[in-house]
């Protein structure tokens, strides 16, 4: 039995925050590859450390010192201090790791979706509840 080939998707236009590496030329689609992971390793390790309450307290007591302790680059440290979520992704953050910091701040994945798309949380959530966003 065969069910044919995958249905085709339309190509979408270029989008606003397209600064992340673009391995497949898919607009607005950051690919967390080995090179990205290498650049982001120290920052991602910081995010992972925020799983424990003790580390969250230490982080909140002096965020800059905590970033320095993990060996972040100045750009990464600034992105973390500014809660510049797009910059964290661009500088090597994995969304699953960046999300640890967002959770600590009480931010949801829908909030982050609102940031990455420029739609804002409310519109993003409404778009998801309406069936999600499409290409094209």
């Amino acid at each position: 039995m065969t069910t044919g080939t995958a249905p085709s998707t339309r190509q979408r236009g270029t989008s606003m925050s397209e600064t992340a590496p673009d391995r497949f030329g898919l607009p607005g689609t950051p690919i967390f590859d080995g090179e990205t992971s290498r650049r982001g390793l120290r920052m991602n390790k910081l995010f992972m450390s925020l799983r424990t309450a003790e580390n969250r307290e230490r982080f909140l007591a002096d965020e800059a010192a905590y970033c320095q302790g993990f060996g972040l680059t100045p750009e990464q440290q600034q992105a973390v201090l500014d809660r510049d979520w797009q910059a964290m992704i661009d500088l090597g953050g994995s969304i699953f790791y960046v999300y640890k910091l967002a959770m600590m701040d009480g931010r949801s994945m829908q909030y982050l979706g609102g940031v990455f798309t420029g739609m804002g949380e409310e519109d993003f959530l409404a778009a998801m509840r309406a069936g999600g966003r499409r290409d094209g």
Partner: protein
Amino acid sequence: MADVIWGLATSHVPSIGAAMDRGKTEDPNWKALFDGYAPARAWLAEHRPDVAIVVYNDHANGIDLDFVPTFGLGTAEQYEVADEGFGRRPVPDVVGHPELALHLVQSLVDEEFDLTVFQELHVDHGFTVPLSVWTPDPGDAWPCPVIPLLVNVIQYPQPTAARCYALGRALGRAIRSYPGDLTVGVLGTGGMSHQLAGARAGFINPEFDAWWMEAIHSDPAALAALSREELIRQAGAEGIELIMWLVMRGALDDEITKVHSDYFVPASNTAAGIALFDNRSGQPG
């Protein structure tokens, strides 16, 4: 010998577990998802295996980016439920099955699938949410011992869809060659279409998901032929984790009986799918 009696494909979105843990399954935003689970749960409750294997990925909880094993298998006697940041889910720790797990490692490595072996592992939502989809009220213990089979889906290059399907087929052979008498359920987890980061965040592709849902039953080879690029284009950057369904599917027979499937949007930013297959040949569903 051991027999695979069923295969269950299910999304493992953390918010599905959170909705259960917080008693929100009747909430209008969630009710249809959980109603869609009911027929599968009822059937599974009548068909408890001796051991289950959960094919899943970790999300920065049990392992970090120091090590990125492409495939891994747990041989521990017990797996603690991970604290992902704000307390662990109120679900039981997981009892493993070292005897079957060690047999699987031996058999798979002999077949040249060189898995990483885990003797200690904290299991996160990628593992516990599928168990909750199967068993909403486990009480003090899950229905049976469970073996984790990890797949790297979060750092490119992920294993190819074809390799996942081939691993599943080898897994099926490994299970059938176990000297003891055991029944086994295999869970393939993750998906369906979704993307979390980038300007394309929130992407959902119901046409692709519908095609995938049909083909996982009747034409898995067509799915195994998809490239990473095609998967990311069609299912979203994180939707590529659907390749884990192919490990489950490979462990089943070519001819299987669908018991139930359902599809729901959105679970957080994700299209949630469930598909349950009876693998007992010649038996009515």
